[in-house]
């Protein structure tokens, strides 16, 4: 086993899911690291879009917020937020949306709103932000999230953003024509939706992770594909680029 941690494994795996020709709507945190890693390795021409209105941005350090000045300075163009959500996201111009979640169910529906009851929450989370329409307007969705029984639950407390709904054709019943969450990348494995029922199935397991590890970290009944692959390990080059990116980022944010 080469020298990497599970977060790096997850980030590199997520980055590899992106193609050079993708136009990607990037959320903050893990998605931002994965998308920029892709740009700095195998997908140099990938178009990264942040909801602050920056199109084709190439930040040298990861932004703390989705609207840091670096995003604008390195972008091809910066448009008003109204235009971003109307012409670019709703207009169907984005091929991939990257989302995380506080809670996730086996159909890829996500909760970033509340834990507990909406009107009397145990924990008030930040809310949906761009996610409800990112989830339905992007060509496909990649979900990235560390696995835990608290996060991967049978039933989420609030459906902030639609995945496959109740499964099967339910997503389309809302008038949604996009593909939905086609890949769930965790720190343990990759899951992909069942061809018809649409619940997530483990299709690839990261090296050193056991099936029991995955089951222990999942709140729903885990299903494994007939043939489960082993996720390729991060290359030395990928790890180096990712670590340099984080080092530059930390230096920049601490220096202020």
């Amino acid at each position, binding site marked *: 086993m080469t020298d990497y941690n599970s977060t790096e494994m997850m980030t590199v795996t997520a980055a590899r899911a992106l193609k050079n020709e993708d136009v990607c709507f990037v959320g*903050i*945190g893990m998605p931002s690291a994965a998308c920029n890693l892709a740009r700095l390795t195998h997908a140099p021409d990938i178009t990264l879009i942040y*909801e*602050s*209105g*920056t199109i084709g941005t190439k930040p040298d350090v990861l*932004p*703390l*917020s*989705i*609207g*840091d*000045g670096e*995003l*604008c*300075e390195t972008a091809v163009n*910066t448009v*008003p*937020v*109204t235009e*971003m*959500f*109307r012409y670019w*996201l*709703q207009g169907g111009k984005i091929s991939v949306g990257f989302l995380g979640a506080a809670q996730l169910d086996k159909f890829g*529906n996500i909760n970033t*709103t509340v834990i507990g009851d*909406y*009107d009397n*929450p145990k924990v*008030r989370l*930040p*809310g*949906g*932000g*761009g*996610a*409800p*329409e990112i989830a*339905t*307007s992007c060509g496909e969705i990649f979900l990235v999230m560390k696995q835990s029984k608290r996060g991967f639950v049978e039933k989420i407390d*609030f*459906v*902030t*953003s*639609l995945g496959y*709904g109740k499964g099967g054709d*339910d*997503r389309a019943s*809302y*008038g*949604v024509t996009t593909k939905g969450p086609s890949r769930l990348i965790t720190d343990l494995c990759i899951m992909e939706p069942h061809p018809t029922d649409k619940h997530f199935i483990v299709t690839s397991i990261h090296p050193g992770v056991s099936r029991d590890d995955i089951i222990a970290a999942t709140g729903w009944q885990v299903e494994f594909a007939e043939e489960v692959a082993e996720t390729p390990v991060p290359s030395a080059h990928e790890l180096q680029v990712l670590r340099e990116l984080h080092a530059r980022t930390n230096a920049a*944010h*601490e*220096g*202020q």
Partner: protein
Amino acid sequence: MVAQFMSLKDAIATCVQNGDTIAMEGFTHLIPHAAGHEIIRQQKRDLTLIRMTPDMIYDQLIGAGCARKLVFSWGGNPGVGSLHRLRDAIENGWPCALEIEEHSHAAMANAYDAGAAGLPCAVFKGYRGAELPRVNPNIKFIECPFTGERLAAVPAIRPDVAVVHAQKANRKGDILFEGIVGVQKEAVLAARKSIITVEEIVDDFTDIPFNAVMLPNWAVTAVVHVPGGAHPSYAQGYYKRDNAFYKAWDTIANDRERFRDWIEQHVMQGGPQDFETRLKAQQTKAEA
């Protein structure tokens, strides 16, 4: 009515009344922090606060007891964590109860656009399969009269006052925004009155591009010169985001007493001139 140049004190005193609906915008960039502090200093109450991303600025207004209601789509300290004052108000009603009306970003961006466009509502492809429509009666659905497609509708945002920060005004009171421009222009056009704080006042705009993002003076109520007025947010071309302070806020806001002390020291006993001072201190530190 052409824009009036005013002090920040006069602008807030003249334009903002208790009970008003206020939109203070700025998407990470150009957040009108100095104006927010002046609202706290003048102890405005019962405000309905509208903002896509109620981050530190609204955490302060809510913790200081200015707000009765919040209309928003994402409430957090970006890249850092929770807004402790916002959560304390929602979860515990401290210092007073806070009603919330929650939307998605797309809904609010469309609602600002509709407000600027003089429409009563915004129509968009949104909230499909999402649960907010169950808890927010201000989300409805209509049918496209040509295709039958189901479309979401939300009321247009039409605030009493929009408060935004911009890079430049000229001496006539025309306003220039550059960089990440957010929904600021829409917020001002949607509002009955507007206050624009600016980094700089220049003689004229003869050298700006034809298609710059700007507001003519007759579309603005009050222009206030507050250098550094967006700090710890940033002003492209002037100063960077003070990310360290956003991180520090997490600790300050996490404790009611510490928060009150901070507000007392930095807001109640402060003034708009502090922003330029703070900025200079930050820049000196950065250069050191």
